[in-house]
């Protein structure tokens, strides 16, 4: 039996489209102080380990770990970076605590996407230098190709994808942290500029800045620190083939396998029945549908109908991305996964304000590392 680990503290620095008033260090500090206050811990005395999740070029700083310890109170402490999404960081913290070596671990990730002036080039720089880079295309062609294949294989329509954007932006209106909340119609999404057929402008999330810190604790410490620990019941992560040429066009295999790993750990046999709500990756509108299917929350090809019926709305039978998702909140780069976990924690604690769901006990958050990757993670959290 694996040891139990809980999230006992959350903190964030407000999500905004730009943040010219603070440096990334000040952003990390702000999120960390709030998380430590929430958890009731002092970093130097109580926290055994720290994990930060960043990619070098996204920030324009190689070896990002250089710039991390001071901002988290982690000087002369075990701290390391994971160039990956925040949920990978939670997995690292989970494992460190499970070894018995550590009792409390803080996990951080943030976005300063606004500071990156050539974002298309950034993603293009992640392509295979021999087979893909020399073509010189805007890398979002990958999303267009994948969406096209997904629609082809599953019979999902562009209208159904548009409804995801409509729903998530509407949800975002009730989330004070969301940057891109608005009331729009499916026609507006469908009528927005065609970018990479069949992907239109409003099918794509826009970037945001913001920082998040979470404090994890062992069962013993968690019970001592808080009345409302949110338990990590399962966690999984997976990388499928990185080649653009060898990947399954329409299927998110990485999400399927990451989900399976998390379900197995959580002993969940029927995800849709045993999970009350989910926060899953919607970097592009179709991704939410593709991920719903990969995570076995509906059958293949059924996610479009689900959103059409309204089942995934905030007041539907299976709410998806109540926070507003990346389409509504803004895409927080590597902190995106933590933003999803943040929402799940707030909902499970009953602290989600106007968008609070009633009677939720188990939630799932999932992340994808974005184009051109074929990697992602999932985490299942519960009140019990």
């Amino acid at each position, binding site marked *: 039996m694996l040891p139990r680990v809980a999230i006992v503290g959350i903190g964030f620095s407000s999500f905004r489209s730009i943040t010219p008033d603070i440096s990334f260090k000040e952003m990390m500090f702000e999120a960390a102080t709030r998380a430590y206050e929430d958890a009731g811990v002092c970093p130097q005395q109580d926290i055994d380990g720290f994990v930060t999740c960043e990619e*070098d070029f996204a920030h324009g700083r190689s070896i990002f*770990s250089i710039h991390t310890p001071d901002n988290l109170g982690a000087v002369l*402490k075990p701290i390391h970076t994971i160039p990956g999404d925040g949920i*990978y960081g939670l997995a690292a913290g989970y494992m460190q605590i499970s*070894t018995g*070596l550590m009792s409390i671990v803080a996990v951080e990730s943030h976005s300063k996407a606004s500071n990156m002036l050539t974002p298309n080039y950034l993603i293009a720089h992640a392509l295979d230098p021999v087979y893909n880079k020399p073509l010189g295309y805007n890398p979002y062609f990958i999303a267009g190709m994948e969406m096209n294949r997904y629609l082809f294989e599953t019979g999902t329509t562009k209208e159904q994808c548009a409804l995801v954007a409509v729903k998530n932006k509407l949800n975002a209106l009730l989330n004070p942290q969301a940057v891109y909340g608005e009331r729009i119609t499916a026609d507006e999404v469908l009528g927005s500029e065609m970018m990479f057929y069949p992907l239109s402008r409003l099918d794509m999330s826009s970037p945001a800045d913001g920082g998040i810190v979470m404090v994890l604790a062992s069962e013993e410490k968690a019970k001592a620190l808080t009345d409302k620990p949110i338990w990590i019941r399962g966690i*999984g992560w997976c990388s499928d083939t990185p080649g653009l040429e060898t990947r399954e066009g329409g299927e998110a295999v990485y999400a399927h396998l990451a989900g399976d790993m998390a379900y197995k750990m959580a002993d969940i046999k029927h995800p849709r029945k045993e999970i009350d709500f989910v926060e899953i990756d919607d970097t592009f509108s179709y991704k939410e549908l593709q991920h719903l299917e990969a995570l076995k929350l509906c059958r293949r090809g059924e996610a479009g109908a689900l959103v059409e019926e309204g089942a995934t709305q905030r007041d539907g039978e299976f709410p998806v991305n109540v926070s507003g998702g990346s389409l509504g909140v803004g895409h927080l780069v590597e902190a995106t996964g933590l933003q999803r976990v943040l929402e799940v924690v707030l909902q499970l604690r009953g602290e989600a304000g106007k968008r609070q769901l009633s009677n939720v006990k188990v939630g799932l958050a999932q992340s994808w590392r974005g184009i051109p990757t074929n990697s992602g993670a999932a985490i299942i959290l519960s009140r019990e």
Partner: protein
Amino acid sequence: MRKVAIVGAGMTKFVRRSLETGKELSWQAAKMALDSCQLTLDDVDCVVMGTAPDAFDMIHMKAEYLSDGAGAWRKPYMRGFVGGGTGVFVADQGWYHVASGLFDTCLVVAEEKMSCCLPHPQGAFITCWDQFTESPLGTSLLWFFAWEMNRYMNAHGITEREIALVAVKNKKNAMNHPCAQLAAEITVDDVLNSEIMAWPVKRLDVSPTSDGAVAIVLAAEHVAKRISDKPVWIEGVGWCLDTMYIGQRDLYYPRYVEYAARMAYNMAGIKEPSKEINIAEPYDPFDYKELHHMEGLLLCGKGEAARLTADGVTQRTGNLPTCPSGGALGVGNAIAATGLMKVAELFWQLRGEAGKRQVPGKPKKGVAQAWGDEMQVGTVIVLGV
């Protein structure tokens, strides 16, 4: 706490520039590591990748690009990163994957293809420093080492001549390493007379830039005992970062290495490292760094490492063989891969399989260490049989 062993290791040659892509290097090392313990990719539960800044391989999110070569196809795959300390850290990270109980086996791969970075791999470092207060000065990587070496010599009255002995020893040790890039028999005078790059650092004080990959296979106790006659146990792990503000630290002593070492020694139950450790692989990107790190690893007192070197204690036949592999100075410095090379070297040494490099007297316990970031990271692993 679950016991975790290293059961296999593999590596490529370290070269200035390789024909192989980073993926291919990763596969070559990983395949050799798996073959060495007769495991297949199906037996691998998870993969950990160690590779230093993306500015070397010049690919954003390079671990994603490298993943298939590292054997991560449809597996849990995570990259760990603490700059130059990454190579030993990923062994620690692989340890926590298995020790957590989540996985029974873990393939740990470290890769670096520095030759991709032009006009020179050293240029990658200007993107590391604080771009507000440091990089605008045209800051070179060598400045940092020169400052530290100068401070270290000044604090203890150590001479360049005493330090040069480390380069002589390690390059000679590397003569017996089949993967070595800069093995050579040189003299102290060769080092002292080599061209000044950033005084007190001279050309032969410095390790080269390299392409290469190294992999090890980790297994939980019940698996290790089944598949291996000679598992090498991970007895202690430690990692630590000091403040990012270099002007707030005294460079004469790497206290972050000491903190990481104490963490690892505590876990391993080691009270007197200088007596209990039989063999050491401290990180030696520069010759003085080996001395600096021996002190940080508490293998001798502050300022004493130069004397131990002069007395031959750190020779392969000495009482405390240090960098018997040939280290970064001799084998080459493919950053993350070099750190893991040191762990692989201990694995081979403790199993008595190091061939011509074998340290006599059946060593039982070894420590490997890497260093990184802005003179700031210590990563440590203690292995034993």
